[in-house]
């Protein structure tokens, strides 16, 4: 009886995995298809060639990479400071700040997008790279904060106390003890921010403007027209990129500190 239900359970889980991965696998397979339609006619890399020859896509991809690197770097700096302040220090209003970060993380992206758009227009910042950068930093920072908070809470206070006993100042203790211990989590936060920034559609849609096109929105305007083999190729590349980043982040968060 127990055995039977266990087998059923595994069968069910397997089905869920199939449901989750089948569409992606199909896209990957057809990205190497010779023909244009969803019938396999032979292996070919022509859709990749076509995609790389598409200036608009390449341009948008470069823009996105630049934006994602800048936004996640800034978000990681701000997020790390926030996480440290919110977890390691007691002060008046801490709960309010905590609640603020919390609300920022659960507020729907679309609301964040339009409220930032309204602010940008009111204070007359022209829509473009600057507004995208600010918005992505606002989007990513709370992610870094939560990634780090877990790590900081597990930080061994004795190590810090030991450093202080041995005469280190608060800053020295931070730079030489706390920071190295948190580095893997900080790096993971950066990677996750990068992924977020590369994928965001809901916020960027509103604050993009017309001068600086980014990849997710390029894809958005392309997929509205249905299946195209070169989008399959692009999706495959994006998917592989995500897998690599997630694996790297996973590895960093897993690394045992000593």
């Amino acid at each position: 009886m127990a055995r039977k239900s266990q087998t059923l359970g595994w069968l069910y889980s397997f089905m869920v995995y199939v449901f989750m991965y089948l569409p992606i696998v199909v896209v990957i397979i057809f990205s190497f298809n010779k023909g244009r339609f969803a019938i396999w006619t032979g292996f070919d890399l022509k859709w990749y060639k076509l995609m790389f020859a598409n200036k608009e896509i390449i341009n948008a991809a470069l823009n996105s990479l630049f934006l994602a690197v800048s936004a996640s770097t800034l978000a990681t700096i701000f997020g790390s400071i926030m996480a440290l302040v919110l977890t390691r220090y007691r002060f008046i209003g801490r709960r309010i700040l905590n609640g603020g970060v919390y609300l920022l993380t659960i507020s729907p992206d679309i609301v964040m997008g339009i409220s930032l758009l309204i602010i940008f227009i009111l204070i007359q910042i022209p829509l473009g790279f600057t507004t995208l950068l600010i918005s992505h930093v606002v989007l990513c920072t709370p992610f870094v904060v939560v990634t780090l908070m877990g790590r900081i809470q597990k930080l061994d206070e004795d190590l810090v106390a030991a450093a202080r006993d041995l005469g280190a100042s608060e800053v020295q203790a931070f730079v030489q003890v706390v920071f190295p211990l948190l580095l893997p989590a900080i790096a993971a936060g950066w990677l996750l921010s990068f992924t977020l920034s590369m994928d965001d559609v809901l916020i960027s849609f509103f604050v993009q403007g017309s001068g600086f096109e980014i990849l997710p929105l390029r894809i958005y305007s392309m997929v509205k027209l249905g299946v195209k083999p070169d989008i399959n190729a692009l999706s495959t590349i994006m998917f592989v990129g995500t897998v690599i980043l997630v694996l790297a982040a996973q590895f960093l968060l897993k690394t045992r500190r000593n």
Partner: protein
Amino acid sequence: MKTRNPLIRLFILAVAIWLIIFALIPNFFLLAISFFEPDKHSYVIADFTLNNYERLITPSFITIFTDSLWLAITATAICLLAGYPFAYILARASARFRPWLLLLIVIPFWTSSLIRTYALINILQNNGLLSKLLEFLHLTSEPVSFMYSEFAVLIGLAYTMLPFMILPIYASVEKLDTRLIDAANDLGAGSLRTFWHVILPLTAPGIMSGCILVFLPALTLFYVPDVLGGGKGQLLGNYIQMQFTKPIPDWPLGAATSTILTLVLLLLVLGYKWSLKVSSQRSEFDNADDDREQKISSRFQAIPQAPKISGLGARLMPRKQRIAGSATEGNK
């Protein structure tokens, strides 16, 4: 730690200013604009009015609202029904395979949901995989297309949001104290009763945060109907988007709709807080240390990003630490 260092004070101030500029002010303006008059030239005129909300009680909006609500509720229910057993099995899988099985959920979780939505076209389109499957099962004699329908939008929402339901439930099942289940069995409860009175209340925070994570995006992911619905199955998100993109934008109407969305969010957060209470009442026999940890970790689950984090190997709240108390290696 007490704060005397001026640098730290400066940082605290910076965090506060950050939140004021990027959370408080934008939302305040959004709320304010929802009470302003729309204007062709400067978007809004600062004249107080309730007109925008009145425009939302017209039948056409109510139809959009209830349709979108229905889609979101159904998608959430599908994710919950499909995701709960899955998360439960996953959390009880042997420790050797679990990280890998979990990783297979974390990857779609982080993959662009736009691309995942797009990937569904191959499955749903005319003569697509689903159609072929039905033909194979002799449920239909000719190719069928599922695209451009409410059904496609529903599948799209459930498909893209499923990992967001699985991960928080997984985290709460993983934390579940198996001694409680054993105790219930020893005391003569059947598996249904154990589930209803022990497992379900204890995993309520996971369920609730999963529902928050699925329900809100399911109301707003405007690209899902764009890609799969072809004008059908419009969401609240499409309606908001339209107010900002139509030739003569109507910011106040969009702002009023967003305000309603924020109210829904706040209601859900209250529901989450309630679920925490239910769960902690049931686990009173946990020692204080466990309790504290549960509070910390369930807090994380409430945050949409948290599954991304607890998903990352669920290493933030290691089981080992819970089992071994906070004694040994978890802390180092």
